[in-house]
């Protein structure tokens, strides 16, 4: 059938064109994809997950398990989109999924014939042997056959955003209860957010024919929404799903800003992920109608009775000319009445109740049940077993199934709340333990009449607001229907044919019986064994039926059987919305060093170091490999002078009368007696005695130190020092501030370092070796008055300084250094050359301070003072960390200088098998040393200090490298330290 001649909340004056499986159709603004397809006579919309059964819509909302389509094309292709929630737009393209070669003829429908083998638990029982076949053969085949939609591999071209909202009252759902609550709170001046997943507010009022006072439901809704929109303290969020209730009144929401458009407007996001901070929330999420299971109840054209009535009332679309209704309660009769009123023929109302009421205009078959259906690609007839035991066939193209309504309790359970059974409506209602600040009103609370929803919403809003000190007046509410619930629970029709409970996962009554037979009886086991209630719909229409069947089998009540746990998200949330703007280059912030622009001009190659981008090396014309550039930078630095940006190292300013005493407790070595104007190397331990970080502390004044940390640990070390300051020694007079970003710092290293610096340091500062020896520091000025800090420290082993200027002068300083250094052929060097030089010098770095090593392992055991209490000192002395055969930092030189040694290689005696039992230690850092013309490495070796001169294997089963190495001192270059004191 097609569009009914009148009615519906669609704009008949405008037509919009869309495509489904390549075929063009027309619809109207106000349609969903599902309503437009039904209006075009299309009932078949998809194939089922496992058996590839032809399927149509089951519902008219976000609970839809069947009508899943791939929406859009290219980078915007979106699988598993519910046709029932897709707002129709001009140019929409959708494809059915899980069908090949076509929706009408699907080759894998053979699965349906094989259903005896594909029962519950078939994953676990079949394909068990041989084990290796599972991953390579069975699973890929099953995945391809039993699937939902496919994702695009193209990048998503759209923008997604995140935002934060605050309110006194969050109203979830804009049906009669939600609108009455919002009106009450909005008029009282409270800050209100109303969120509704639909594009048209009103909830079921849009799909019903009854009146509110003298108005239609739609008109009343329009009037209330208009008033709410006029209130500055009310924010209306339609197309917005509250998908999770989180701690302390925080709610997650997705607003589909542009999903109803072909492409988002320029610079507008596709979706926004809102984090809503609410003082109070009122859940008015309504109720979801549940189906009844009977043989072949999954044919296109069979849907919930409320969906059938919604398609007719809201969208003026009837799936067939003649329909029937199968019900166990009075609400099914309402569907039949509405359909009759709209001119649809109702063949009969099949009511399971012996005492079913009569209905004007249609035959009621009391005490009857639907026992089977026919019509492969769309319903053609239903077979009914009458109360007298006789059978009757009804030729109908659609069947509305009314099994009763389930309050939509999902969000009430996100904080471990469990729903409780209510016999009067034969459904679960919210339990007493609700998420903090949440109340429930209307059908979500089990109050199904419109009258009860309106008053429940308004009264709850007043009560909630009074809690937070806002008094609200009761609004005038219109007269509305107040029909009682009359239901005799009925879950499934007996029989041997398959009767579907979960349409999305193809779980039938038989599967639940099998699970029971095989002792998977608790609801959580039932879910995992049969997959009941899994996948994109999370069992919104199926869980109740499944656990009712299980309750029947176990002889327990439904209440005692219980429900599975509801978890966020309520409906699927796209990865794009969760990622927001954190994609690609913006996945995390990028920190640039002060010399970045200059380094870019030099053609530097950059490397990510945490969030920083650092120059890795500076290639020159003619250099073919990175090694050529790095070797040149190292040799040039050691021969004359090199410059490297070391701004990324953490800098912590420590001030106060107790600054020295404080650092004395933070570092394992002594700091109390460090003279002003001097720098000292410091090693920090964790309280368990393991090395945490190293660096230097420079004493600029009695009460002023500058501490440096490694780049990686800048943040954790600062946090650790604040912990010590606030929690351990709260009365020490000491203040900390991170100044990493405040100072641009450059290492100037090499025999000509002093000569270069003397050209830019202002003449009143004497930096000669006598006046400014190794480990001196001072506040100076450069370039004619620019304040700077100079530290004579060396990571390279050369005569070296680090010079710091306020960050905004960093770019100018590097340019000045390069200019002043021309006469010395000054060479900029990157992190690779920095690493080579520190390995040549045998300095420990992050690879050595790896969270497993101690001061003793690092060869600094004697630095740990036992004359004071410092963090980690006590536990560093325990026996387990001081074994005679403990690891020691040593150097390695391959017997063949051209043989590479790799970090990560393990050390073994020559001839020993490569087993963990024979493991003697491991290589932590390795490089080619252009100075020694050999590969070199440092690492940890058991009792390494006693093994100088021995030869071992450095082997890596991962790379196949296996190199003979000689154990040497880790200090390959200038072990006496003459160069750095020069």
């Amino acid at each position, binding site marked *: 059938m097609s569009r009914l001649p009148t009615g519906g909340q669609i704009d008949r004056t405008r037509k919009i064109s869309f495509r489904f499986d390549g075929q063009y159709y027309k619809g109207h603004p106000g349609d969903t994809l599902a309503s437009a397809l039904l209006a075009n006579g299309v009932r078949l919309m998809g194939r089922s997950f496992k058996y590839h059964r032809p399927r149509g819509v089951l519902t008219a909302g976000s609970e839809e398990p069947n009508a899943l389509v791939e929406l859009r094309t290219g980078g915007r292709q979106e699988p598993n989109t519910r046709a029932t929630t897709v707002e129709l737009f001009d140019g929409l393209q959708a494809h059915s999924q899980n069908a090949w070669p076509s929706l009408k003829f699907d080759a894998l429908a053979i699965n349906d014939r094989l259903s005896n083998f594909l029962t519950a638990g078939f994953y676990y029982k079949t394909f068990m042997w041989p084990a290796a076949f599972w991953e390579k053969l069975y699973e890929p085949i099953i995945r391809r056959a039993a699937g939902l939609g496919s994702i695009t591999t193209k990048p998503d071209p759209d923008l997604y955003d995140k935002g934060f909202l605050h309110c006194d009252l969050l109203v979830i759902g804009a049906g009669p209860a939600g609108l009455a609550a919002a009106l009450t709170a909005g008029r009282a001046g409270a800050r209100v957010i109303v969120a509704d997943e639909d594009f048209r507010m009103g909830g079921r009022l849009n799909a019903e024919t009854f009146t509110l006072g003298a108005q239609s439901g739609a008109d009343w809704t329009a009037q209330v929404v208009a008033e709410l929109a006029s209130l500055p303290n009310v924010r209306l969020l339609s197309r917005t799903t509250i998908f999770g209730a989180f*701690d*302390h009144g925080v709610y997650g929401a997705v607003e589909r800003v542009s999903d109803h458009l072909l492409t988002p407007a320029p610079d507008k996001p596709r979706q926004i992920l809102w984090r809503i901070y609410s003082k109070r929330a009122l859940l008015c999420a309504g109720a979801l109608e549940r189906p009844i299971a009977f043989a072949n109840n999954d044919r296109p054209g069979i849907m919930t009775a409320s969906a059938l009535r919604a398609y007719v009332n809201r969208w003026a679309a009837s799936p067939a000319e003649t329909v029937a209704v199968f019900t166990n309660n009075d609400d099914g009769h309402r569907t039949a009445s509405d359909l009759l009123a709209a001119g649809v023929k109702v063949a009969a109302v099949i009511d399971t109740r012996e005492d079913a009421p009569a209905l004007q205009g249609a035959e009621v078959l009391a005490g009857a049940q639907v026992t089977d259906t026919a019509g492969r690609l769309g319903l053609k007839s239903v077979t009914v077993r009458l109360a007298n035991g006789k059978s009757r066939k009804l030729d109908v193209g659609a069947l509305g199934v009314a099994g009763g309504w389930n309050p939509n309790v999902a969000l009430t359970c996100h904080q471990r709340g469990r729903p409780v059974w209510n016999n009067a409506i034969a459904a679960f209602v919210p339990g007493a333990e609700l998420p903090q600040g949440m109340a429930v009103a209307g059908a979500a609370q089990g109050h199904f009449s419109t009258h009860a929803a309106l008053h429940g919403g308004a009264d709850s809003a007043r009560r909630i607001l009074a809690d937070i000190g806002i008094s609200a007046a009761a609004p005038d509410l219109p007269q509305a229907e107040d029909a009682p619930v009359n239901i005799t629970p009925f879950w499934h029709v007996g029989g041997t044919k398959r009767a579907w409970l979960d349409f999305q996962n193809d779980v039938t009554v038989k599967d639940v019986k099998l699970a029971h037979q095989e002792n998977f009886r608790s609801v959580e086991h039932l879910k995992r064994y049969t997959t009941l209630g899994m996948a994109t719909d999370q069992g919104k229409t199926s869980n109740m039926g499944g656990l009712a069947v299980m309750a029947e089998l176990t002889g327990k009540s439904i209440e005692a059987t219980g429900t599975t746990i509801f978890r966020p998200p309520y409906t699927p949330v796209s990865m794009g919305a969760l990622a927001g703007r954190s994609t690609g280059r913006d996945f995390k912030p990028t920190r640039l060093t002060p010399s970045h622009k200059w380094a870019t001009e030099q053609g530097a190659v950059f490397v990510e170091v945490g969030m920083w981008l650092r120059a890795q090396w500076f290639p020159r014309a003619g250099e073919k490999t990175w090694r050529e550039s790095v070797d040149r930078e190292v040799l040039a630095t050691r021969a004359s002078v090199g410059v490297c940006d070391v701004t990324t190292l953490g800098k912590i300013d420590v001030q106060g009368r107790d600054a020295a005493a404080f650092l004395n407790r933070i570092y394992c070595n002594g700091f109390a007696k460090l003279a002003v104007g001097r720098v000292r190397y410091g090693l920090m331990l964790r309280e*368990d005695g393991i090395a945490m970080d190293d660096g230097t502390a420079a004493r600029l004044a009695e009460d002023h130190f500058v501490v440096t940390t490694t780049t990686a640990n800048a943040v954790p070390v600062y946090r650790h020092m*604040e912990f010590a300051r606030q929690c*351990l020694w709260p*009365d020490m007079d000491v203040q900390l501030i991170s100044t990493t970003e405040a100072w641009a710092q450059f290492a100037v290293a090499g025999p000509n370092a002093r000569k270069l610096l003397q050209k830019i340091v202002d003449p009143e500062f004497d930096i000669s070796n006598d006046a400014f020896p190794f480990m001196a520091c001072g506040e100076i000025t450069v370039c004619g008055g620019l304040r700077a800090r100079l530290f004579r420290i060396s990571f390279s082993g050369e005569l070296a300084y680090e010079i710091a200027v306020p960050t905004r002068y960093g770019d100018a300083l590097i340019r000045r250094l390069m200019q002043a250094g021309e006469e010395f052929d000054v060479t900029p060097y990157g992190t690779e050359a920095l690493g080579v030089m520190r390995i040549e010098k045998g300095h420990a770095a992050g690879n050595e301070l790896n969270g497993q090593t101690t001061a003793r392992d690092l060869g600094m055991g004697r630095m740990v003072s036992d004359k004071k209490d*410092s963090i980690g000192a006590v*536990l560093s002395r325990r026996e387990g960390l001081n074994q005679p055969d403990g690891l020691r930092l040593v150097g390695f030189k391959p017997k063949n200088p051209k043989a590479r040694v790799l970090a990560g290689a393990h050390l073994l005696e020559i001839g020993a098998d490569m087993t963990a039992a024979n493991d003697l230690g491991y290589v932590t850092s390795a490089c080619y040393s252009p100075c020694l013309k050999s590969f070199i490495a440092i690492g940890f070796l058991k009792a390494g200090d006693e093994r100088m001169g021995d030869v071992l294997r450095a082997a890596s089963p991962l790379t196949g490298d296996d190199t003979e190495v000689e154990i040497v001192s880790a200090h390959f270059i200038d072990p006496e330290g003459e160069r750095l004191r020069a």
Partner: protein
Amino acid sequence: MIINHPLLGPCDAQEFTYKGDARLIDRPDGMADGADAAFYNYAYLRDNPAGQHRELWFHEQGDRSWLVVTRNTVTHEITQVELARDVARKSGRSA
């Protein structure tokens, strides 16, 4: 979660970094007799209650205060938030 900072008012827990049991404030004296046993307890032995827990949170994206938050680990209900420095002083720690 929302942590009601004693100086700044309600703040999202995202602004904080978690450390653990607030007993970490009670660091033993490293120079006292029996320090090894005391530090072994301090570094390794902690309760892991399902229920009320006093724990340390650092307002890293905020004012850099360390806080002692009394939180129910089952329900996430937060019943008390104090400056860790005040807690440390109350328990006798000074300089």
